[in-house]
């Protein structure tokens, strides 16, 4: 279960999100959506413990973030590292097997096998010996995803994993995420595309610097909520609602918060 209580956070003197309050039971596939600048990434960074909130608190599995960090895995945006770095794809994925107090210079055989397994899961096995700079944007994102999967954490957090990614990579990423969810694990993902959001997630957090709504997608993904968040073109939104009505997905399987 993730509980966000009275959260206000931001950077320096600039407040990026105000008074966020919600709780969602795990396992869940949670989408954080909202227009640009609505504080989606800020919320994710605060959940990760990367950003200290001004006020309020977040707890996961009933504990403060600092105590459950090892149960989280994070897929950052791909522009957050130097892709010219002299390192091979396999070495990046192996970092997912990295444990803070492991001494010695080598990864164990089982770590190597796990890394190879997850590299295969994202369909990148044949690239394992390439230098990372030789990959396309979508392939880079898949390598980052494999690294996070290799941590075998309970909650996977992703920041717009489909941004700037080709269609093939995008499909692969979504199918890996759906497998992950099927293992009873949870995913929290920042997402900008409303059209896919309507079918992808089972829970939504809809943001507009303040919280618009949070909970099961059926309750959140409504015309009035979306209008509050985006304030624009109603016809496009209502098309989407209609689409959502035709694909209810597996919503009823999940307990309501």
């Amino acid at each position, binding site marked *: 279960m993730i509980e966000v209580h009275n959260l206000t956070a931001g950077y320096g003197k600039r407040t990026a999100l105000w008074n966020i309050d919600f709780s969602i039971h795990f396992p869940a596939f949670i989408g954080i959506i909202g227009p640009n600048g609505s504080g989606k990434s800020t919320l994710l960074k605060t959940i990760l413990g990367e950003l200290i909130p001004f006020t309020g608190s977040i707890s996961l599995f009933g504990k403060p973030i600092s105590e459950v960090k090892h149960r989280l895995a994070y897929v*950052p945006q791909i522009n957050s590292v130097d892709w*010219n*770095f002299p*390192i*091979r794809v396999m070495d990046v994925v192996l*970092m997912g097997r990295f444990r803070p107090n492991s*001494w010695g*210079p080598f990864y164990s055989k089982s770590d190597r096998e796990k890394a190879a397994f997850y590299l295969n899961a994202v369909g990148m096995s044949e690239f394992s010996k390439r230098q990372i700079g030789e990959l396309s944007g979508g392939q880079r994102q898949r390598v980052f995803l494999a*690294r996070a999967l290799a941590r075998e954490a309970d909650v996977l957090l992703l920041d717009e994993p489909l941004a700037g990614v080709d269609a093939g990579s995008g499909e692969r990423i979504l199918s890996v995420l759906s497998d992950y969810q099927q293992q009873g694990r949870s995913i929290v993902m920042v997402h900008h595309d409303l059209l896919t959001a309507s079918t992808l997630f089972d829970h939504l957090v809809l943001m507009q610097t303040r919280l618009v709504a949070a909970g099961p997608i059926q309750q959140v993904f409504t015309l009035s909520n979306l209008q509050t968040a985006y304030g624009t073109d109603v016809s496009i939104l209502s098309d989407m609602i209609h689409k959502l009505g035709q694909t209810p997905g597996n919503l009823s399987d999940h307990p309501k918060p």
Partner: protein
Amino acid sequence: MMTFLILATAGLLAFQAALGGSFLLLRRSAMLTDAMAHSVLPGLVIGYLFSGSRSGPEVILFAAASSFSSAYLIDYLNKFAGIWFEASTGFVFTSLFAIGIVLITTLGGNVDLDADCVLYGELLYVPFRYSSTHSWYDALPLPLWNQIWVGLAWALFLFFRWKQLKTWAFDAEFCRHAGISDHVIRRLVLALTSMSIVVGFDAFGAILVVGFFILPAATAWLISRTWHAMILISLLVGLGSTGLGYSLALFFDWEPGPSIVSVAGLFFLGAAIAFRQNRANSTFRPTH
């Protein structure tokens, strides 16, 4: 034998510099070594006044502390006062260097330090400086012992913390999530770097030691596609330029330190021309 002692001293420094330089280069902090090398000076003078010797342990500790604190201060100003990294580097090391010069010139009457040996080092005097304790420690010259201890510290650190270092160098944020403080790793690397700079300073002087740190690592970065290759190539370039530069110095009667660093510079220039396509669009700048 004298040649061997000089080459061993320079070679051990090349080893440390290739490793430390690689990490700092990849974290975009290569010029921090320049700042650290200049900031050795105040600590050196103070240590000298305490002990009266130029390569005793007190001098090394004072000088390393002074050099490390400059790196710490630069990071601090950058992170907490929001001053650009370049700018904070610029004023921290110039201030510390200036303080060092003031100390030398005011207290310098009884201090055997002058601008020449600070800037250019005294590699040729390495074989003549012993601890004079009349023990087994007199088997090797003092500067060589210093290099051995610091080199050993690097080797142990790398062996036991290799995975952490690699993760940190590539992605400090991920390192943090995986439960390792990137600040602690950075400070450990900087602390060892300041030790290397201090023991290297003795032989090469403030300016050349910087070249030693940056040139082999930068050459390797241009050429290599993998992490191991980068470390290995920077080691080879460091050791190769030491051997070649020193031979040239003997043959043409040049100053050995500058000769070694010039050869390293030529290696870098060659690599930059031959492999210029490799790193053509590297515009990435991490936060430090």
